[in-house]
């Protein structure tokens, strides 16, 4: 316990939610009601991990938002993987506002997470990665994902 936390800020029917920690079978989403929200923005940057049981609970919880416009932002790779793989993890009317793309340099071993933002690095159907991402030593870094798989949710 204590590994998971949700902070909800409500501005009328616009909910801003920050999700922190590990999402697994121990998480009780019933404590965090989404009823009455017409707009739901979830900051997922601080999600550390999620397992299959956590996915089940997440989908149930997000479903309680009903017809609210759901937006995910600052999605780490583990969230993007679930969006791509598990149908319903991102609701049908949901959008990803921004997400991180891991980069890696084989030479230096350095890793970076580059934030891709809707309207900049990607649109609803296209991805335009930065021309070059370099590590602290100036070495060019390569994308550390299988692109055809990682950006699949954009090209739906």
């Amino acid at each position, binding site marked *: 316990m204590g590994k998971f936390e949700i902070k909800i800020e409500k501005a009328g029917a616009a909910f801003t939610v920050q999700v922190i920690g590990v999402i697994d079978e121990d998480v009780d989403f019933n404590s965090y009601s989404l009823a009455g929200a017409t707009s739901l923005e979830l900051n997922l940057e601080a999600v550390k991990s999620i397992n299959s049981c956590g996915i089940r609970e997440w*989908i149930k919880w997000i479903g309680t938002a009903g017809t609210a416009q759901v937006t995910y932002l600052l999605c780490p790779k583990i969230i993007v993987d679930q969006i791509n*793989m*598990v*149908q319903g993890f991102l609701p049908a009317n949901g959008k990803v506002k921004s997400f991180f793309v891991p980069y890696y340099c084989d030479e230096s071993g350095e890793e970076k997470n580059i934030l891709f933002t809707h309207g900049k690095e990607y649109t609803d159907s296209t991805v335009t990665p930065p021309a070059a991402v370099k590590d602290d030593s100036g070495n060019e870094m390569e994308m*550390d994902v*299988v*692109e*055809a*798989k990682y950006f*699949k949710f954009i090209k739906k």
Partner: protein
Amino acid sequence: MVIRKGISLRYKILFMLTMLPLVMLGIYLFVALNVFKTDKLAYVYESSTAVAKTLSSQASTDLASLLNSAKPIMQEFVLRRNFAQVSEGILDTDGPIQWLAVYSLENEQTGEFKQIGTTEKDGTSAVNDLASMPNLQSILASTTAKPRQVSVPFKDDRILLVEKVPGTNGDKTLVFLILARVPELASGFHGSSGTENFLLTEEGKVLFGPSGSVDTMLPDRLGTEFFNKLNRQKFSWGAESIRSPAGENLLAGYSIAGFGGTAVLSLVPQSDALKAVKVLVIRSLLFVMVLISATVIVSLFASGNLTSAISDLFRATQSVAEGNFDVHVDVTSQDEIGSLADSFNAMAGEVARLMGETAEKARMESELKTARTVQETLFPPENAEIGRTKISGFYEPASECGGDWWNYCSVDDKIWFWIGDATGHGAAAALITSAAKSASTIIERLNIEPKAAMALMNRSIYGVSHGNVMMTFFLGCYDRTSKKFTYSNASHEGPYLIKKSSKPPKKKDLIPLNDVNGPRLGQNKEMEYEQITIDLEAGDRILFYTDGIPDIQNPDLEAWGEREFVKGILIANSNYPEVDVAVKNLATLFSTFRNGAPLKDDITFFMFQILGDA
């Protein structure tokens, strides 16, 4: 359990509780009795000396008084050479003097004495008394050395004073014998209870004393050492401890009377003096016996209580040693033994609980092993070759039973591929895989398309789990005739298609088969799935897998990760070996990284290959 046959703890406690007060009382008695004895002896010495001093003072006074009374008679005779009016006047009174006799020393060389006169009180006969005195001559002779003597010639209350009067102006030396009755003085020596008082001559002869002792020589009874010491020291009074030749211990107080060499000796047998000590010893011993008896009774009760509780505990431990943990010790005492019993009961209860849990765990493990054996039948042979295709797989559950399942089957000219991953792992997930296998066995014979098969699979899984356990699933069907591959996906990891090339494959050559996707099996009762068909060609291979591979951890809990997984796929297929080799290559890579660490999730993957070149 070996039962030791030594002395019982009860008897040890009893012995200790008895011996401790016994020894302490013994030491106390020894010290107290010694102090008491010393004090008593000092008291007896003091009182004996006081009695001796009193009696010697009385004797000295009485004898001096007698002599003074006789002196006028003696002076009359010296002057007149006979007894006349003075003599008659004194003897006619009620005085103590009975008679006087006077002797003259006729020849100093021969010591010859001659009676030259007597005077007597009426009713007495000096002549008769003198005639009956056997040692008269020796008394007269001894006046040469001792001019004043005292003796009791008739062993009664009459005392004989001998007074020598040297002659002057040519007169002969005279020796006066004065017999006087001194009943008060004599009765003072008749003795009191436990004490013997003696009026003695210088030589130790008893003048007055207890009955039967008169005229005896006390040195014969007491030994000469005491009297020699007495004469040597010249102390006027004192006290001594005497051990007689007969072995009698006596306490003696003495006082020199100073008249005619007489002395008073007061004797108390030490046994009489310490009679009180004996009484005290006897009473103390009785008290000790009573106390020890009480101690033994109390100790028996206390040790019985203590040892019975320990015996209960011992019997309980024996019971536990024999495997019976359902024991309870009833000890109500509120002390350490009670606490020990509580601890034992708690321990026995906890051990019983743990034994129960262990037995239950063993039973469950046994059942899980059985379940694993059964589950293993759900999986196909790891390697197969069907026509111009080859299949090879790998499966390792994270626990006894896994939540992953894969399968393939050939129906007519079609080969079906099934791979799924139930939520979690363990028994519940394994049961879902069993349901999936059962459903697939029927579905594969229905000659339906993958999307319809997936919908049926969903109903089957939902029917079993009612939404509590779900399953990601990928279902593909390869038509060996048309070389078309049709697949449907239920939120499962999209397999990678790798096309054979003249160069080793790179990351961009991994083609995820994820063009269609649907919800996980079991999420809803009625679901429709999409399917898509792609064309394959000879040399193509597909890697089907579950998400457990990137989660593999080494002993340092570092995950293998997706990057290494992708690299592993590329290395394992770098020269496009047949899939059984590629599967082994990939397994070797992650096994090397894993280095024996336990699995976090089930590992399942298999490869399908169309043999030949494009």
